[in-house]
């Protein structure tokens, strides 16, 4: 399944690069590489949010780097 991170202008400034690196690491650690595909996308039109837009299962989350572990535990794993 696709896990899509926004890399548009706004999210770039909110450090989407760190989000991608963090998610990449978590996916590897939990051995999810053959079940979750990390992708990039341009603007998801949620630029007003505080965090970087990340789409999972048709829901858009707004994430900061320190929220990634909780996000994977609570959102990604249960809905895989």
């Amino acid at each position: 399944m696709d896990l899509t991170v926004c890399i548009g202008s706004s999210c770039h400034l909110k450090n989407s690069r760190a989000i991608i690196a963090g998610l990449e690491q978590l996916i590897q650690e939990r051995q999810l590489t053959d079940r979750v595909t990390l992708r990039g996308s341009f603007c998801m039109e949620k630029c007003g949010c505080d965090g970087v837009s990340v789409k999972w299962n048709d829901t858009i989350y707004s994430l900061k780097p320190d929220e990634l572990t909780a996000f994977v535990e609570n959102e990604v794993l249960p809905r895989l």
Partner: protein
Amino acid sequence: MHDRIYIDANYKSLNKFGEELCGDRVQYVPLEDRFIMVLSDGLGSGVKANILSTLTSKIMMTMMEGGASIEDTVDTVVHTLPVCSVRKLAYSTFAILQIYYETGECYLAEFDCPGCIFIRDGKLVPIQYTQREIAHKQIREARFHLQIGDVLTLLSDGVIFAGVGALLNFGWDWDNVSAFLAERAEPDMTSARLTSLLSDSCNDLYAGQPGDDTTVATVKIIPQKIVNLYSGPPENKEDDARLVTDFMSMEGLRIVCGGSSANLVARELHEQVVTCMDYLDPEVPPIAKIPGIDLVTEGVLTLKKTVDMMREYLAAPTDSRVLQSLDIPHGAAMIAKMILEDCTHLNLFIGKKINPAHQNPNLPVDLSIKLRILDDLAELAKQAGKVVTRHFY
């Protein structure tokens, strides 16, 4: 059909070591119907040489521009130059190059300077000169036809003497310089890159301390190349389809800048945007792909960097570091390279809608400045000699 040719020209002078002024002078101007370049090397070095070569090139340029004959032009120069008090001579070498866009017809006149290097299809072409006397000076002249891809390089004698008495007993010598250039000139190299290649080699042979003013001026014959760049959603959503239709109907390369713009184009073309996730420069967001579009990038941050890079290029177009920066495969450099090196005509398609996505006061950078950045980009492209047209939506 014979299409008109375009001219890509650049030059670089290395000053004699320790001199603040260069005694060589290059001037060129693209006129309506033709292109003229003059290279002049004044007697001696420093201030005196600088004045002689500046006078010579300026007089020649102005008279040729006004349509004066070569006889009158040379005669005027000979009778105008101040006489050097040491050498009792008024002297400055020159080479004049005149190229007509419609016919590709070229006129070359040289006085006492190293011959022009003419390269076609990677091979050196000997120039057939005729000699005649004008105002007691022996002038070499040649007329020939140019075609797309041809390279003409004018030199001052500092080039052919590079390394003399140090690395090379008798200097680099015209045969070796021209063979070097013919061998190393790749088909995709611009005049700036060719100039940089030869000038840097001279500098190396002089071990960074040129024994004479050393000038390389290169002209490359190129075809018309069109680049179309689209950025920003239209003010009215109803114009989306019209904009994409207009944009896609253009000849040439296509660039789309901006996430919303890329999504809009993909939607209208019934295609998908596939983003890459490689960060080659942490400052520049990754690029993306849409079938049928040559380059897709993020918008305002990328364009800002592109504008910075273009400004840097225009300040020093033959600097090898600047040229190398254009080869980095991130979005901003790719746009800058396309506009600077692969373009005679730039069409900008600009959507004027203020992007609601960018109205977030918590962001560290002001994103609402895209229209101004696109103004800067248009201005810089004009400075680089491109014909720029803008379409607003």
